[in-house]
């Protein structure tokens, strides 16, 4: 178990600056989710922590010792980490047990110690019955758990997970998410998981680091991130909020000739409005055209037209709100950011 620290880490491929000055501390025993849209440099950051990619500048320390920086580059095999790859990377020429055995072989454990540890690791991911299977005879979820067992068996200081749930279907996703949470509670290992799925990040992590184009936008607890996003980008990405560019005039947000009264007082000027779909309430009378109504089960989604931009609102199934009619809108909560932050 160990803390992980990144200081001003830079990485570029040719002229493309992929990771630009990332500084981050993951406390010993905590779970950090690295969240961001596709191509923002999450995997690259994780691979640098693993030692699979060299830094251009900055430093990385694991458990207090510098593993990468101007003075040192510790190769991946000597960092004492475990990693679950996005493609699982379960070796096709080894059985499940042999896959899990490998880190122990490299640690030089003898056979009986190894067998006990393999059994323990397979039990943790509930794969005891599959020890002698060939990988090609496993399902995606099972391969995933083999990868997890292999990453954990060597008792790593830090467990790295690259999109651990992305290749699974919805039911398996739930199951493995619960499993990872349980493992973490039991083992207390420091974990860093990359994901572009905000629900996954919010559900698992102690801390979420939101990344955008190689830069960390915000690092906070899931609750703080949801309640107080520090930029429209974070709000849009994490809460699925509407992000609208407009203007504040006399306490109301104005866009496309429509006025929306703001719940809190804000000074006049151009701004970006962040409005969560569940923070607005439809009213029977008003001038906003309702473009569509989608039944989602627990709630109903409404698509309103604000000039030429669309606005998403969630709410109960109002009988009055039928596509083609016009409705009104009351904002219960909203955040307003100065325009240039966007």
């Amino acid at each position, binding site marked *: 178990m160990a803390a992980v620290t990144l200081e001003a880490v830079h990485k570029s491929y040719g002229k493309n600056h992929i990771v630009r000055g990332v500084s981050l501390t993951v406390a010993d025993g905590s779970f950090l989710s690295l969240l961001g849209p596709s191509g923002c440099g999450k995997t690259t950051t994780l691979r640098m922590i*693993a*030692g*699979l990619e060299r830094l251009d500048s900055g430093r990385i320390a694991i458990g207090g010792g510098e593993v990468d920086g101007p003075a040192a580059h510790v*190769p*991946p*095999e*000597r*960092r004492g*980490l*475990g*990693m679950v*790859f*996005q*493609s*699982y*990377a*379960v*070796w*096709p*020429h080894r059985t499940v047990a042999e896959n899990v055995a*490998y*880190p122990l072989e*490299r*640690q030089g454990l003898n056979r009986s110690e190894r067998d006990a540890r393999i059994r323990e690791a397979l039990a943790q991911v509930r794969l005891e019955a599959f020890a002698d299977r060939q*990988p*090609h005879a496993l399902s*995606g979820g099972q*391969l995933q758990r083999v*990868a997890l067992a*292999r*990453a954990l068996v*060597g008792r790593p200081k830090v467990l790295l997970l690259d*999109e651990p749930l*992305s*290749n699974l279907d919805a039911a398996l996703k739930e199951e493995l998410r619960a499993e990872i949470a349980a493992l973490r509670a039991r083992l207390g290992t420091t974990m860093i998981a990359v994901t572009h799925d905000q629900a996954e990040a919010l559900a698992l992590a102690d801390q979420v680091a939101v990344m955008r184009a190689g830069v960390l936008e915000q690092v906070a607890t899931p609750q703080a991130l949801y309640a107080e996003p520090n930029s429209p980008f974070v709000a849009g990405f994490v809460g699925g909020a509407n992000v609208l560019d407009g203007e504040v005039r006399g306490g109301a947000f104005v866009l496309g000739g429509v006025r929306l009264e703001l719940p809190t007082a804000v000074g006049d000027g151009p701004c970006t409005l962040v409005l969560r779909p569940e923070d607005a309430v439809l009213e029977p009378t008003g001038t906003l055209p309702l473009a569509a109504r989608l039944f989602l089960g627990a709630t109903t989604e409404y698509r309103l037209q604000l000039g030429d931009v669309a606005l998403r609102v969630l709410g109960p199934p109002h009988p009055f709100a039928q596509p083609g009619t016009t409705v009104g809108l009351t904002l219960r909560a909203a955040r307003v950011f100065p325009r240039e932050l966007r």
Partner: protein
Amino acid sequence: MKRSALTAALLAPLVIFALLPLAVLVVRGLRSPDAWGLLVDPATFAALRGTTITSAGAAAIAFGLGLPLGLLLGRTDLPWSRAWRALFALPAAVPPFIFAMGWQLLANPRTGLLNTALHLHVDIYSSTGIAFVLGLSALPLVLLPTLASLEQVDAAWEEAARLAGAGPWRTLRDVALPLALPAAGSGAALAFLSSASAFGVPYLLGVTASPPIPTLTTRIWAQVLLGAHGLDQAGALALWLLGLSTLVLALAQRLGKRGRVSLASGKGARRTRLPLGPSRVAVSATTGLVAFVLVVLPLLVVVVASLQKNFGTFDAFTTAHWARLSHDTRTLGAFGQSALLALGTGVIVTGAGLALAWARSRLGQPFGAVAWLAAWPYAIPGTVLALGLILAFSLDTRVVLFDSVALVLALMNTSWLLLVAFSVRHLALGLRAARDGLERVDRSLAEAARLSGANRLRAFLDGTLPQLRGPLVAGFTLAVLASLTELTMATLLLPPGTDLLGTLLFELMSYADPAGAAVLACAVVAVVLLGQAAIAAAAPRKVAS
């Protein structure tokens, strides 16, 4: 009705020209008066032993060189790896007996350059020499599948090993090597097969060795030369050769299947390249030296020899032999005859391959067997196939087997039998090209044509066929090149008074006019290189991923 007629039309020539000769060979071999005696004859065993030893040696050399080379080219950051790959693949395209000629010039115990100039003591006229030359020719059979299987190795597999505590070289050993091993093993079995089937090299290097090194192919050839009463002995030898090669072929296929790795993985496989670090220069230089000595030097020495006044000496340059050969009617005749035969084979093989592949994709299962039937003659030794054709279409067997069915195909001792032999043998090349092509062509292209109003044939011609150009050109060219330089079957089936490029070259090389042979060899290599260039040009560009 229509389907069965089509089946029959495609099947009949295969049965008559591919299955029947082998059936005749086997039946006759087992039913001849002294079948058992001939099978266990000491001379037969000596030949079997010679073939086994030289082929096993060749397979060992191909494996021992091909596997490390594959890891080096496929897994490290060695510069120019594409160029090295092309160079080391060259021996697959150049007939082995041309390499044998080069090595004769280099390693003849008395006059070879290595012995006279470098004062080494190497003798190419030995089992080791035969195995060496055959093994180098078979190197691509190990190298190319090894490289192909290494391409399937996902970088994440290796990175997972690194995270698990393995260093870079340990990772190579524990991940890449086990994954490449079945492909390399299967390639080595194929190397054994191709060496056991070779005729030119063991003839050139084995017959003049002291003591001579008998092999199955050269003994069969000698027996066939004796005429009718040598055929029984030849048949017995051929049965051994057939048995041996079938066994090895089965082994190769088993290993080949094991080597196929397929695992669902999220993102496309990336490749890692192991840094050679400071040893990069030394390793590059060594690779270059090995490539030069093994591939370039033997060909270069043939070119130089063709420009010498007296063959085997290296002092006076002259273009006299080139001038002489370019006016020689026999040479020109052989070129013409070979070209005609090769082009004919190419056309037949491409057309029949396309028909078979199409029938297979449309008619399904029963054609699996047909495809197998079509591929078999390419896998078994040419000597066996040629002998089967001789037996099946010579007068006496025909009477024995078909006295009631008057199947009169007066093919023996005509060039038509050569065309049949080459076509049957190389059908696999045409079939494979057409099948690979068809598999890659999107069905919807033809379906779109159908919906636009084209009938089935029109839709094939307009929608599918244009997409097949690359593979078909490649298949055609491969078949033409293989036929152009074919030697093994040609020596057995050549009608008297005719010359082919391969046989003429061989005749000149073995006694009459080695300098002339060197000129012809250069011409053959040039043609082969042109053909390979044509295949490369016709290949569809790989879509960057």
